[in-house]
């Protein structure tokens, strides 16, 4: 380094000397190491995601029964048969209705609670924990819990209200289509609001207090602060919540499978229940796969649209 005048003296020169072969070998070593680090993930993605995806695609084009296995290609029968199911359109309609209700109510409540508890005091941290606790419960377990609570025979709600003299007859939480829908919505909100509150809370805490201060100096009211500062700056968090909530609700299964089984009178059948029914009640994996592929494509399109819409206005 001392004798070589052709190179200008640099304060913090990157690694000296290695030229030619040694450098390339280091480079190669590094890329090998990189590949080695990425390999486990790649293998998992390949085995657990790509491969099943191809299998589902193949199933959807084949006559494939649950017990008989693959009986050869029959494309596009599985797809054309989909439309003959009398439950298809009602289940799509119901899934969309459920998604709309859950998304609007849950995200509103989650945002409200997030605003309430964003400052850290002892009281709000208790509240945060309380709202978040249901998220630690599996959805199926939560559904079973509510199944018990809602039951007119073994549930505690009816006797409690009766002893208070508020009702005479047992309340039928799952007995009518409307009641079943709202009872399930209540369960889902109880179970998931904490999670979305957390997502929004992180977003809220990322907003600099300076912005609010500047707003206040300009004489903005509380509502103006919320509308013109909080909401726009919270957009990324809201976008994330929206996408997660819509996708999750469109794929609703456990809660209805356990609470209502699609009843009463097929009023709460979701699209995923239809897939399950096709596979394990009709023993037709081909038909179930075809419906899965359609749902997957719809979700991909929907997510792209949501991403675009929420990003373009940034």
């Amino acid at each position: 380094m001392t004798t070589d005048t052709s190179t200008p003296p640099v304060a913090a020169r990157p690694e000296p000397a290695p030229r030619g072969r040694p450098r390339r070998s280091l480079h190669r070593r590094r890329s090998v190491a990189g590949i080695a680090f990425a390999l486990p993930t790649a293998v998992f993605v390949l085995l657990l995601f790509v491969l099943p995806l191809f299998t589902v695609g193949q199933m959807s084009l084949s006559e494939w029964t649950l017990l008989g296995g693959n009986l050869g290609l029959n494309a596009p029968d599985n797809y054309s048969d989909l439309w003959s199911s009398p439950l298809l359109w009602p289940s799509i309609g119901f899934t969309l209705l459920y998604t709309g209700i859950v998304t609007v109510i849950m995200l509103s409540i989650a945002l409200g609670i997030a605003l309430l508890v964003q400052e850290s005091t002892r009281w709000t941290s208790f509240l945060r924990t309380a709202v978040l606790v249901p998220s630690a419960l599996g959805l199926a377990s939560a559904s079973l819990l509510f199944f018990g609570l809602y039951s007119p025979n073994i549930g505690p709600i009816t006797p409690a209200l009766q002893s208070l003299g508020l009702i005479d007859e047992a309340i039928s939480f799952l007995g009518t289509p409307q009641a079943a829908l709202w009872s399930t919505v209540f369960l889902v909100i109880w179970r998931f609001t904490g999670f979305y509150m957390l997502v929004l809370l992180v977003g809220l805490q990322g907003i600099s207090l300076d912005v609010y201060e500047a707003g206040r100096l300009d004489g903005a009211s509380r509502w103006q602060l919320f509308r013109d500062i909080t909401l726009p700056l919270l957009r990324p968090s809201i976008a994330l919540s929206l996408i997660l909530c819509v996708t999750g609700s469109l794929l609703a299964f456990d809660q209805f499978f356990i609470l209502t089984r699609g009843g009463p009178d097929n009023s709460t059948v979701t699209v995923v229940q239809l897939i399950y029914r096709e596979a394990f009640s009709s023993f037709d994996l081909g038909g179930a796969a075809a419906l899965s592929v359609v749902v997957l494509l719809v979700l991909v399109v929907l997510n792209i649209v949501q991403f675009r819409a929420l990003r373009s206005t940034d």
Partner: protein
Amino acid sequence: MFPNTQHTRGRVRRGFTGAAFVAAAVVALAGCAGGGGEGQGGGGDVGPEGLDDGTTLSMWTRAATQAQSEAFVEAYNASHENQVELTVIPTDDYQAKVGAAAGAQNLPDLFAADVVFVPNYTSQGLFTDITDRIASLDFADDIVQSHIDVGTYEDRQYVLPHTMDLSVMFWNKTLYEQAGLDPEAPPTTLEEFAEQARAVDALGGDVNGTFFGGNCGGCAVFTWWPSVWADGGEVLNEEGTEATLDTPEMESVFEIWRGLVADDVVAPGFREETGATWTGVFPEGNVGVMPMPSTTIGLMPDDLDFGVAPLPGVEGGESTFVGGDSIGIAASSEKADAAWNFLAWTMSDEAQLEVVAQNGDVVARSDLASNEYSDADPRLVTANEIAAEGRTPKSLRFGEAFNDPNGPWLAMVRNAVLEDGGEFDQRLEEIDAILSQ
């Protein structure tokens, strides 16, 4: 389904993949262990009792009948060289698990199945033919015939009864007495059943006349079809490809239940009862009389004074739905002789008396209907005796047509009993369309 699934139905259905891995691992391990007989279908030269040479056998059962299967396996392992390794699978996952294992040639040596789904398995060749082996048993003719019939495919027999679950009438003697009814006189016709239910319901307060799973197609099949059979009616044709539900017998059954619903004789919650908790109502002691699975006899609280009777027809007669699980040897098993040793033992006097009867369950052999354990409890004799007269419907599309909570049968039942019975013909057409596929 059946009735026994109802106790566990609705339980957690998840960890699908995880469970599949575990199951695959279990099967793989079981595959490594022990050798055993060469296992050719007909039985051949190993004698009617099969081989007991220290073979390790894998076996699957669904959670609904876990208790009975575990009792069998424990007693067998304690007294035999062969060892059975039992894997219990969540009831709602069972079809999926068997289907996946069948595709991958990964079935265990022995597997039990809800009897109504057995035709699906036999027609796909999942079970080993055991016709000759069954015939070699001394008591072959006394084995409950309805399970054998359902497990017969193209004149070959593939399964034996594993657990028996019959639909029988339960009545609460204490409430009968309070209502001025004879506590020792259960209904002998369905009309009488309705009268007695109404009489008990008149007690008022928390007491109700009867109960049923109003959002559970399988429950209606299990508890109402026997009344049609008792009157000499049929619900399916012999091949199970067509429903004959448009009979006066079926209509009368619907009508009687519709009347009970209209008069508010049924305990609350029946409209949304999916079958998950329908057997939990009677044990509370506030329901007068209702049809339920015989497997719940042993689960009743000690202080409940109740009786058990056969299900009556509208006009009289008696019958029952013989549900429960059948068991067979997987066609892919290489240890058929050893597996048969287990099956033959489960049907023996020893197993039927010391395991089944002692646990308060219904025996699968008519010659053992009256035994030292059941004699102590007349309710069990009733159940044991009715088993021989009972029926099990057979159809390849049974689950899709009748058990599916979103299927046409449940819609028909709800229309007929909770509403005015409209759209009957349309539902019947839908059922036939499924059955004839």
